[in-house]
């Protein structure tokens, strides 16, 4: 009897030790790539496996950054030099899926997300490493580009051959490339059999799996104050992307001009501080955040765009700090009272369902 008990005890001890051996390991690394800090958190990986995976991501991000940069010399720069000629030429292969996918998303956004307006972005001075200081461009210069209505539908693709008849078309994937790159990073991690991860590229992220026995916890920064506005838990597979007027802007004679240009007016979109989009695919979330920011704070304007693009949730913060949420997000999000000034809870309105 004593002997049996002893054996049982032994089994328990061994099981306990075995459990120690397979303790899930977190791996965390920050990369200065893609013009930002990319923060990679992996769960349940061996250290060596994590290091290898992150090195691979760093290489990929570097490659994509160089290939798709809108104003540094490189493959996209060469394409933009050749497009105005109106002649057909061969596209660098890495750009093909980017053009195809962004054309599709542009169509679904009814042109509010429009990567073909690179000339407008450059005219406003946002296609530069240094933020513009003003003054804003002249109405005539803006009109000259707008009149030609550059859009992704102006691009003719035949295999790898590209051509456009619109001389005002210039590609700028600033509102899309980061999302696309984050999707590729998640693909790579899954290929390496890493199924619990967060890839956070300068505040825009996609999370898969979970953090051990709990979901991933994501804080959403306040667009106007220091600190966190709200928190939300993510598990399975979801992207959260935010477009805000605080990211890149300049002030000129009391007016803030942000970097998100409305393709309809040629001027920076007005009325919102930030738009946060929830979707499975990061590239969709990225493009939709821009499209909804352009659509503006009125529900009858942004909701149809959100539906057409197929996002799973939206949070908008307008110029006055008022918040709109889709019902699904309302159930998941927790607003964090501001510690600094004991502010009352923000004014929150729930929109119609998506």
């Amino acid at each position, binding site marked *: 009897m004593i002997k049996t008990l002893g054996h049982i005890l032994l089994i328990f001890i061994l099981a306990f030790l075995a459990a120690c051996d397979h303790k899930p390991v977190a791996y965390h690394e920050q990369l*200065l790539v893609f*013009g930002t800090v990319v923060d990679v*958190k992996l769960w349940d990986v061996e250290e060596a496996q994590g290091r290898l995976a992150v090195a691979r991501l760093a290489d990929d991000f570097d490659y994509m950054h160089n290939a798709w940069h809108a104003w540094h010399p490189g493959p996209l720069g060469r394409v933009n030099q050749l497009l105005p000629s109106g002649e057909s030429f061969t596209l660098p292969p890495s750009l093909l899926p980017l053009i195809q996918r962004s054309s599709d998303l542009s169509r679904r956004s009814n042109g509010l997300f429009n990567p073909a307006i690179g000339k407008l972005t450059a005219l406003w001075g946002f296609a530069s490493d240094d933020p513009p200081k003003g003054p804003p461009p002249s109405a005539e210069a803006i009109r000259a580009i707008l009149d030609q209505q550059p859009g992704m539908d102006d691009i003719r693709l035949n295999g790898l051959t590209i051509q456009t008849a619109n001389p005002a078309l210039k590609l700028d994937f600033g509102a899309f490339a980061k999302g696309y790159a984050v999707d590729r990073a998640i693909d790579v991690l899954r290929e390496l059999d890493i199924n619990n991860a967060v890839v956070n590229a300068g*505040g825009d*992220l996609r999370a898969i799996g979970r953090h051990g026995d709990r979901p991933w*916890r*994501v804080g959403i920064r306040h667009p106007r104050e220091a*600190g*966190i506005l709200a928190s939300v838990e993510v598990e399975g597979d979801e992207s959260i992307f935010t477009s805000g007027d605080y990211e890149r802007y300049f002030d000129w004679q009391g007016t803030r001009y942000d970097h998100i240009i409305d393709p309809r007016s040629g001027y920076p979109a007005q009325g919102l501080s930030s738009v946060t989009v929830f979707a499975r695919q990061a590239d969709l979330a990225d493009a939709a955040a821009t499209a909804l920011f352009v659509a503006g704070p009125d529900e009858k304007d942004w909701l149809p765009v959100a539906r057409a693009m197929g996002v799973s949730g939206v949070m908008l913060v307008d110029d006055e700090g008022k918040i709109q949420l889709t019902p699904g997000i309302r159930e998941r999000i927790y607003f964090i009272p501001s510690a600094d000034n004991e502010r009352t809870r923000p004014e929150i309105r729930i929109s119609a369902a998506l």
Partner: protein
Amino acid sequence: MNWVKLSRGDAVVWLLAATLLVSVYTIFWQADGHGAEAVVLVNGKRWARLDLFQNQDLDVPGPLGHSHIQVRDGQVRFVNSPCPNQLCVHTGWLNQGGEVAICLPNKVSLQILGSDPRFDAINF
């Protein structure tokens, strides 16, 4: 069972136990989301690890020049940096585990560590 008078040895054991209890509480119940340490990276490599409750000022050398980082009473921030857009300075004070401020042009980043940060990722 007989109650016996507390011997000197017993008193020492009790005292040790009480001390242990108090220190265990102080050590393990302090994590309330506030990070106590921050890490400074230059070009992705760890440059310094900062105790946030030891007030200090640092000049961190990057490719463009020195970024001035300040630690005050559990918070840390960029005071100035030789970058054109000053995004790092506008980020302001960091005090929560996981919060990040970066000066991309000067390749200096600042992140709060935390034994139990409230968040795995910050969206902005």
